C-alpha cells in the first residue's frame, strides 16, 4: 500500500514537469491573423495581439505584428523575437486571406490550422477584397478588440444574416469532400469600416469567383433552412416591396439524371408603400415574387455550372443517391446538367394595415 502510494506520488511529481504551463495573462494571444501573398513563395503574416488594461476589460488596444517569410510557422517563430511574452496560438478565431493569396491557393496555410489541435475547428475564415493587412490596420472599432469584433461580425452575418455558414471544419469538409466546393465570406475595408460584401467561391483551394450579398442570400436559401432575410420585389409598376422570409425549407430531389430543388418559403410583407394588399393583389404579388425568385435562383445555378464549381454540393447529394457515382463523370456532365428549382411562396400576413 505504502509502496504503491509512493510510486504514484513519484510518477505524479515527475510527470508534472511534462505539462507545459501557459498562464493566461503571461502569454500573447491573438484572435485574428491574416495571410497575404507577397511573391510566389513568400507570404506576409499579420497578427493582432490584444493589450489588456488592468481592471478595464473594455479598454483593449491592439498591437500589430507583421512579418514576411516562407512558411507560416517560420514567421511565427521570427515574430516571437519581437514579443515580451510567449505566443500562444490557441485563441485564434478569425483568419483572413488576402484575395491574391486566396487566388493562388490556401491549402498550405489550412494545413497548419488543421494539423495543430490547438486551433479551434469553429474558427471563421474569410477572404478580403484586396490586402488583408489593410483591414487589420484600419481602425474600425474603438470599443472592442479587433479580433473579437471581426469574429462577432462574421458570426452575426452567418447566424442571422446573408452568409451561408462556413467555419474551418465545414470548409475542410467541402475542400476534401467529393462533389462539392468550398466558399468563404468576402469582406472589404470600406473607408475604415469592415463590410461583409458577399461570398467568395472556391474551386478546390483557389478563389475563383465572387457573389454579391443578394446572391449570397439566394445561395443561403438553397443551402440550408433559413428563417430570416429581406427580399426586395420589383413590381411591374416599378415600385419595390420588401418581403421578409419567416421560414424557408429546401430539399433536393433526384429525378433520372436531373436534380430538382424544391424551395418552400413562408413570408411576411414588411414594406409596401402605396400598394394595396388586398387578397387579389396578394395573389399577383405572390406570383411575381415566385417568378422572380425562381429566375434568380436558376441564374445563380447557371453561373455555378458555367464556372464548373459546385458550392451547393449537388455532386455530394448525387453521390448519396448513386453508389456508382464517379467524380470525373460527374464533373464532365455537371456544366450541362439539368437543375430545376421549384419555388413555393406562402405570404402569411401583410401587416396590420390594409
Amino acid at each position, binding site marked *: 500500500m505504502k509502496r504503491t502510494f509512493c510510486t504514484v506520488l513519484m510518477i505524479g511529481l515527475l510527470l508534472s514537469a511534462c505539462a507545459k504551463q501557459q*498562464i*493566461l495573462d503571461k502569454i500573447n494571444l491573438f484572435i485574428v491573423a491574416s495571410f497575404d501573398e507577397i511573391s510566389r513563395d513568400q507570404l506576409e503574416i499579420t497578427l493582432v495581439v490584444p493589450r489588456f488594461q*488592468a481592471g478595464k*476589460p*473594455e479598454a483593449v488596444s491592439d498591437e500589430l505584428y507583421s512579418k514576411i517569410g516562407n512558411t507560416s510557422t517560420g514567421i511565427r517563430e521570427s515574430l516571437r523575437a519581437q514579443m515580451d511574452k510567449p505566443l500562444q496560438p490557441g485563441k485564434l478565431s478569425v483568419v483572413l486571406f488576402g484575395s491574391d493569396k486566396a487566388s493562388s491557393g490556401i491549402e498550405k496555410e489550412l494545413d497548419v490550422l488543421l494539423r495543430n489541435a490547438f486551433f479551434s475547428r469553429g474558427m471563421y475564415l474569410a477572404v478580403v477584397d484586396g490586402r488583408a493587412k489593410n483591414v487589420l490596420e484600419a481602425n474600425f472599432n474603438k470599443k472592442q478588440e479587433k479580433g473579437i469584433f471581426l469574429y462577432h461580425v462574421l458570426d452575426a452575418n452567418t447566424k442571422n444574416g446573408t452568409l451561408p455558414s462556413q467555419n474551418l471544419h465545414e470548409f475542410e469538409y467541402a475542400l476534401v469532400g467529393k462533389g462539392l466546393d468550398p466558399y468563404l465570406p468576402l469582406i472589404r475595408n470600406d473607408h475604415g469600416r469592415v463590410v461583409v460584401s458577399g461570398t467568395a467561391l472556391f474551386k478546390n483551394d483557389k478563389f475563383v469567383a465572387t457573389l454579391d450579398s443578394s446572391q449570397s442570400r439566394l445561395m443561403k436559401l438553397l443551402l440550408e433552412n433559413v428563417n430570416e432575410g429581406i427580399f426586395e420585389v420589383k413590381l411591374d409598376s416599378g415600385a419595390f416591396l420588401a418581403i421578409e422570409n419567416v421560414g424557408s425549407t429546401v430539399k433536393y430531389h433526384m429525378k433520372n439524371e436531373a436534380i430538382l430543388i424544391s424551395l418552400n418559403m413562408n413570408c411576411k410583407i414588411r414594406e409596401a408603400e402605396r400598394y394595396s394588399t388586398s387578397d387579389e393583389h396578394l395573389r399577383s404579388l405572390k406570383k411575381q415574387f415566385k417568378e422572380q425568385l425562381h429566375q434568380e435562383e436558376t441564374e445563380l445555378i447557371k453561373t455555378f455550372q458555367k464556372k464548373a464549381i459546385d458550392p451547393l454540393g449537388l455532386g455530394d447529394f448525387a453521390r448519396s443517391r448513386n453508389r456508382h457515382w464517379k467524380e470525373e463523370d460527374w464533373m464532365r456532365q455537371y456544366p450541362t446538367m439539368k437543375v430545376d428549382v421549384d419555388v413555393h411562396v406562402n405570404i402569411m400576413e401583410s401587416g396590420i394595415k390594409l
Partner: protein
Amino acid sequence: MFDIPKIWEEFRESSDFVYLRQSNHVDHYLICFLKSITDINVLNEQILDFISKNAGLLFDELFEELPIAEKELSSDWDEIRNKLLLGYVAIQQAPTAETILLNASSSKGRTVSKPEIEFNVEGSKEALVESLDINLNLIRKRLPVASLRIKELHVGDVSKSRVAICYIEDITNEQYIQTCLQRIGDIQFDTVTDITVIQQIMEDNSNSIFPQMLGTERTDRIVWGLTLGQVCIVVDGSPNAILGPVTFQHFFASYEDYYLPWLIGSIIRMIRFTSVMFSILASSVYVAVLTYHGHGISNAFLPTIIASRINVPFPPVVEVLIMELAIELLREAGARLPSKIGQTIGIVGGIVLGTAAVQASLTSNFLLIIVALSAMASFTTPVFRMSNTIRILRFPFILFAQLWGLLGIFMCSIIVVTHLLRLTSLGMPYLVPFYPLRLKSLTDTIIRPPYSKFHQRPGFYRTKNPARFDKRKSNLKNDIDE
C-alpha cells in the same frame, strides 16, 4: 457508635463526600453521599424526615418503607461504590453488612431547546440536549410503539458513559443492530465525552474524510431514520445522535426538504447538489483553465478575465491558495469567537480584506467571486461533518489542477470516486443506490418524491418489513359522499 468503615476511606479525600450519623433515639444510621450530585431536597424531606419519624424499624423494614422509587439493598462493595458515584445515598446500620441504596441523584443541564446547527424554518424546533434521559424521552415520545428497543451500554473505563442504541425491532435488520452493539462494546477508550468520539472509533473506515454515520440533533430526523430501518446511537453528555447505516446522498438531504412541498423540496435539494459540485470544483477549474487551457475561454469572457488578472504577480494556483486560505481563516476565526465578534470578523475579513486584496492586485476580482461563491455553496451542506469534508476536499483538487490541468481534476475525481466506492457504512455500500444500482430505491435521492411514493422502505436497508403502507390506498382524495 462505630467509626467510619474503612470502605469509605477512598472517598474521604474528596471534599464533596458527606457522611453523617443520623439517629432517632432508637436506631443509629450512617448516611453517605456525594453532595455534588445528590439532590439535597430529596435527602432532607424524604429520607431524613422518614428516618427520624419512624423509630424502631428493622433494617429490612426501613428499606421496604422508604418512600423512594429507586432503591436497592446490596452488600456488594463495587456496586455500592458505583451507585454512590451516580448520586445514590447509602444508608448503613452498624450491625448489618447490607447497605440501602436510594436514588437521589440530581441532574443539572440544559432544557430542550431549538436546533442550532440543523436550523429550519418549517417543522419542529426540538433538538437533543446533553442528558440521555431527556433525549430518550424525546425519541420515545415520538414513537409510541412497543417494538422500539433501547439497549444501554457503558463505554469508557473512566467516563463510564451511558450509550443507548435505539432501533425498531420489527423493521431494522438484525445485522446492523449486532454490528452496532459489537462495535460499541469493543470500544477501547477511557473517556467518551461526545458522540463524535464513538462515531470516529466505530466507523467502518476511521481514516476516511467522509463521515460514515449521520450526526444529527433533530429528533424528527432520528425518528424518520428509525422508521426507515436505521439504528440510532445516543450518548449521555452529547446533544447529537448518530444514525447508521447511511449512504452518501443522505448528507445532502436537509430534513426540511420533507416539510416543503415535494417539488420545492426537490428543486432545493438539486440546487444543493449542484452547489456542492461547484464548491469542490470551481477554484480548481479556475486554476486549470488559467494555467493550461486559456484557449478554452470564450471570446466574450477573455477581456474580463485577463483585465482582472493582468497585474496579479502570482500564478493562478498561488492566488487561489491565498484566497482559499483567507476564507478558511475567516471561517475558523468566526467559529472560535463569540457570535457578536464573529460578525465583525465577517465584515473586516470579507469586505475590507476582499476589496483591499483586489486593489492591491494580490488577487483578481474574478477569483474573489469564485472563492466567495464556492465558500457560500459549501455552507449549503446540511450536515456539519460533510461540509467540513467538502471544505478540505477542495485542496487536493487545486493541487491536481495545478499539476495536470483539467486532466488532473479528472484524475482527482477518479481517486475520490474510487475511495467512495470502497467505503461502507456498517457494511452497507456507501454509494448505494447509485452504485450498486438499485432502481427502486432511487426515489428519495436527488429528488424528494411526494409522500405517496414512500410506500416502500429503501431496499438497501434490507428491512424486515419493507412495506410502509398500502400503495393502493395512498393519495385517495375521495369525495365525502362516496
